[in-house]
């Protein structure tokens, strides 16, 4: 991908904190215009630091990056004019109303006076906050705050949107609503979205491509399907009803695929033929009179990708991220 066709291009980006670790340790990535790029990693991986750097709020220690065709160090003002950002904290003023937030943002973005109120109303309608528009934000629910946050990021019609863990702490309904809006922005309006998340299903559901980051480095990158296929096929995990029959169970199951794990009372085997082999397995176990306590099919997930690349599961990994 050359820089002309990239909305975001990052080359060996490093961000090191004084007396601290390298939060971002030489990452390379490129995001095409109109793409939703999911940046997935545990707490402390370097996701938010990357976002703060790309949005010009943190200068990089070394490396280069361009956003919207502008260098993040030399052309910071142009970068900021091209992007909208909803950062990790919703960062709203509890005393102001939703409408006042939007009007303030519009004023600070240099929008002509005549257009501010109109744009505020348009965005309130878009994110479904018209009824709450003139209520103080302190009384908004978490979902409402996130929607307002998104609206504020869109006030000046940016071409590129940065969303830093936008659905953390939201209920399922609010999360789905936000996903829908993000997908619409990208697919209908051609907006480029750089989305950080620690939720696998969010990256799976939304992202056209995913970059997995751990300890400041990108450990894997590709479409969700590509990444999962790279790791391998689904696995089946079986726990025998009689623990002494473990070896017999291994014998039976390894007829269908390679042994992945044998321990903790469970036998796990990788299935090259996928879930279609499940019926055969059940028949074979039945014919061998092997009773099972449980049988579970595991589709490969991005968590498995993370596990394969780092030796750790994504969920539960990572300390608290110290961003600044």
């Amino acid at each position: 991908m050359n820089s002309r066709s990239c909305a975001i291009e990052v080359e060996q980006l490093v961000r090191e904190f004084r007396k601290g670790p390298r939060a971002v340790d030489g990452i390379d990535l490129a995001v095409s215009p109109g793409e939703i790029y999911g940046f997935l990693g545990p707490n402390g991986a370097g996701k938010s630091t990357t976002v703060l750097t790309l949005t010009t709020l943190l200068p990089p220690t070394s490396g280069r990056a361009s956003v919207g065709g502008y260098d993040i160090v030399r052309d910071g003002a142009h970068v900021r004019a091209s992007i909208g950002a909803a950062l990790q904290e919703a960062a709203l003023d509890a005393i102001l109303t939703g409408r006042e937030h939007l009007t303030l943002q519009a004023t600070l973005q240099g929008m002509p006076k005549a257009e501010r109120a109109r744009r505020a109303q348009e965005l309130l309608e878009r994110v479904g906050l018209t009824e709450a528009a003139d209520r103080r934000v302190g009384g908004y629910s978490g979902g409402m705050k996130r929607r307002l946050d998104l609206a504020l990021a869109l006030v000046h019609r940016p071409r590129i949107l940065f969303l830093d863990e936008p659905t953390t702490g939201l209920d399922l309904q609010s999360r789905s609503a936000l996903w829908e809006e993000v997908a619409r922005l990208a697919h209908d309006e051609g907006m480029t979205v750089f989305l950080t998340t620690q939720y696998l299903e969010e990256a799976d559901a939304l992202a056209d491509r995913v970059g997995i980051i751990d300890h400041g480095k990108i450990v894997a990158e590709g479409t969700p399907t590509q990444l999962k296929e790279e790791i391998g096929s689904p696995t089946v995990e079986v726990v025998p009803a009689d623990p002494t029959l473990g070896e017999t169970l291994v014998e039976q199951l390894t007829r269908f695929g390679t042994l992945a794990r044998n321990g903790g009372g469970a036998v796990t085997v990788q299935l090259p033929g996928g879930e279609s082999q499940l019926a055969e397995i059940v028949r074979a176990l039945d014919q061998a009179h092997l009773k099972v306590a449980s049988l579970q099919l595991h589709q490969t997930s991005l968590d498995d990708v993370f596990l394969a690349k780092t030796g750790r599961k994504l969920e539960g990994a990572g300390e608290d991220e110290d961003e600044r």
Partner: protein
Amino acid sequence: MSVSAAASNGVPALVQPSLVDQVGAVARRSVTRTFRQRGLLVFPLVFPLLLFAINGSALGAARKINGFPDVSYRDFALAIPFIQGALFVAVSAGTDLARDIESGFFNRLALTPLRGSALLAGQLGGAVVVACVQSLVYLAVGIASGVGIASGFGGALVLLALSILIAFGFAGLGALLALRFGSGEAVQGFFPLLFVTIFLSSSNLPRNLIKADWFREVATYNPVSYLIEGVRSLIITGWDGEALALGFGFALLLCVITLSLAGASMKNRLVRT
């Protein structure tokens, strides 16, 4: 609003809102926030007036000290609420800014074309509006309680101007603390120290009547003494050129120092490439 030269390849030109627009927007927000949090407005009004009422009466006997000016103690004490009010403005302005930093709202502002100087001016502008209201209330209550303004109506206007200038300088201090430490708790932690400077001054007695040598020395070197004496001269003396010159002089110096330092801290805090 100004528009920079458009980049090539049809890239949108950079829009720079006017400084007036930016300052106005920030100041409007600052004032709105204050007037919507009644507690923030009521306490700085009530507390200094409460102290004025209590001390004005409790120290009434002080006027029997040989050499005390020939006015009631209440007249003498009215200058103090203006300085205490300025302190509250400082803490309030600082806490507001610190809260923006802590909550991440500062980052939101940093992502707009907002200039650091506009952000500072807007925050302080809001503080000045509050200081105006406070000063008017203190003056009105003072006059209603029987205090005479020796310098007349013109002097009352000069008094308001001086007290607002003092509040502006203190608000700069509040902003400096907020930008330097980025924490509302740190700003509030300085409040007692600032309060101490009012007591260690000529707030309760004229400097020449302070018996304890060390206290008189401290009060003499304490700039707050001259701020108080400047305000007080308009109430009990009339037009005292020296006191006014010192009062306005120190107030301006306070403004210059705090605003310069706050401006420098803003540059460091508003880190953007």
